[in-house]
């Protein structure tokens, strides 16, 4: 009896997702195109060791700050490292930090919101106060303080940014959980004596998946900018690891920096943010337009 219920709900869910995907392609072809751009960027990062023309750490003291030419398409940096290779490798860090921190933050926030929304009552009220406390601190400022505390490094930056994403997940998923809680099939499951954990995992969580996916994509762009801002403020991933924000930080030490030091990392940041934003928007419009006001 119970399994039939679930099968129907999940099957319905899947077919709805497939529909949504078709709608997504049809309704926002641009977003789909940008999704492909995002995918290319990710692939580029993954394939960096294969496609980059040079070792990103290989210094050449005879060729410091050389302008773009046939040897190095994007020029070289202050200690003669190939900028194109550094940008390709930098994509790994920037994208990984973005994806990992959003995934971590949204997942923690999502579980939190799910439990809090489903259980309701005092638990919900207290947990919402905690969410509000974290939310009261502007994202970049909170991340800045946390990285200061934990020391700059890739993992600390991921954790710091993830913390700033938790409240978003907690709020949105909570509201979904609240509405799902009232549906007939959840009541039915409760009626036949399913445990709370089981109901949350089997019945409520699947309904939260679409908002989760949307949250995930929509926040990627924001997070990439936060990471770049932290690097700009001197709290980036440690050298010699290349990151886009770090390259900008190094270049902006001069009033008139070499243009290629500034231009290429900036363009890559902008394009990446653009791709994730537009893809996320399209995805949201296709999957769950109700979330428009809240994300």
């Amino acid at each position: 009896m119970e399994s039939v219920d679930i099968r129907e709900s999940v099957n319905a869910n899947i077919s709805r997702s497939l529909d949504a995907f078709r709608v997504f392609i049809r309704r926002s072809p641009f977003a789909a195109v940008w999704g492909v751009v995002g995918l290319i960027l990710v692939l580029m990062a993954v394939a960096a060791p294969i496609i980059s023309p040079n070792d990103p750490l290989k210094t050449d003291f005879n060729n410091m700050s050389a302008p773009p030419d046939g040897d190095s398409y994007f020029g070289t940096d202050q200690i003669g490292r190939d900028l194109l290779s550094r940008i390709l490798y930098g994509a790994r860090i920037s994208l990984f930090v973005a994806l990992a921190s959003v995934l971590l933050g949204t997942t923690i926030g999502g579980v939190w919101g799910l439990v809090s929304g489903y259980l309701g009552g005092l638990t919900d009220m207290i947990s919402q106060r905690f969410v509000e406390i974290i939310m009261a601190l502007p994202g970049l400022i909170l991340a800045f303080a946390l990285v200061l505390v934990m020391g700059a490094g890739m993992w600390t930056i991921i954790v710091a940014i993830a913390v700033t994403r938790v409240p978003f997940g907690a709020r949105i998923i909570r509201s979904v959980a609240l509405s799902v809680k009232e549906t007939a099939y959840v009541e039915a499951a409760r009626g036949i004596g399913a445990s709370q954990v089981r109901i949350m995992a089997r019945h409520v969580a699947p309904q939260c998946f679409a908002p989760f996916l949307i949250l995930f994509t929509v926040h990627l762009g924001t997070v990439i900018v936060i990471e770049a801002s932290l690097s700009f403020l001197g709290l980036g991933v440690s050298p010699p690891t290349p990151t886009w924000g770090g390259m900008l930080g190094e270049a902006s030490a001069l009033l008139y920096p070499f243009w290629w030091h500034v231009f290429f990392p900036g363009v890559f940041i902008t394009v990446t943010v653009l791709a994730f934003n537009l893809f996320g928007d399209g995805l949201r419009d296709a999957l769950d337009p109700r979330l428009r006001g809240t994300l």
Partner: protein
Amino acid sequence: MRTYILKRILYAIPTLFGVTVLIFAIMRILPGDPLGAYYGIETIINWTPAQRAEILRDLGLDKPIAVQYAIWMKDIASGRLGESFFRGDPIIEILAQRGPISAQIGIISVAISWFIGLPVGIISAVRPNSIWDMCTSFFTVLFLAIPGFWLGLLIVVGLISWLQYKAPIVSVQFWENPWTNFQIIAGPAIVLGLGQAAFIARMARSSLFEVLREDYVRTSRAKGLIERLVIARHALPNALLPVLTLSGVLLGFVMGGSVAVEQAFTVPGLGKALVVAAIDRDFNVVQNIVLFYAVIFVLVNLFIDLLYGWLDPRIRLN
């Protein structure tokens, strides 16, 4: 309505209390202390443990954490917020000098975002998929993607290269010299304003786009109202509610973003003070500035909640 207001305000109090605890906890587990900045990183000197202890005692850093927290609470209650470790300056003076400039930047950027974002969004929603819509969408997504500090850097370098112009770097309040004050705040306000305007335009477009397809709008059209009135009188008020909420959320974006943007423009605002104090480990200044940001953020969102409740009866009755 009164119970709604009271309830909202009561909710805000524990939040603010929690914020102080959170900030304080973060500050006191920070590695490093102000002594490095105290003696200058240009010089490496050996002070004896006794000298070190004496200075830490002077700064009040030798007391138990709970006592330090209590002292901070007392300082907040007294309205002076304590003193900077460095130079012994009262922190309230730093806030009084830097706060108005950052506040102006924030308010003007919000105003810019509404003045630009709203009309753009409305026209796009009314004429979807027109050339105008395409163009504005392009600029909207572009400004959403460009990091503010980055745009700021480009503007500063551009102005200095072509016009030999640099905005004043010493803080001047509006009532002291409006023109100088305007030059200080113009750059960051525009950059932050454009960033927000993109959000506002996008939200206004999608929200109005949907409202225009609602039954009651169709009804008012059927009733023979001219299109302008339909939009202005019936559709817009409802479409603006989500835009208003978004603006509150965006405030966090402005305050966070302003730290990096103020740094890029060398604006003598709170953001710059925060970064400098954080690097020098002037915990007293950092925790008070962060608290100040949090208080403003909470209060503005409280205000928006109340406004929302006033505009939309469903919410206050819920």
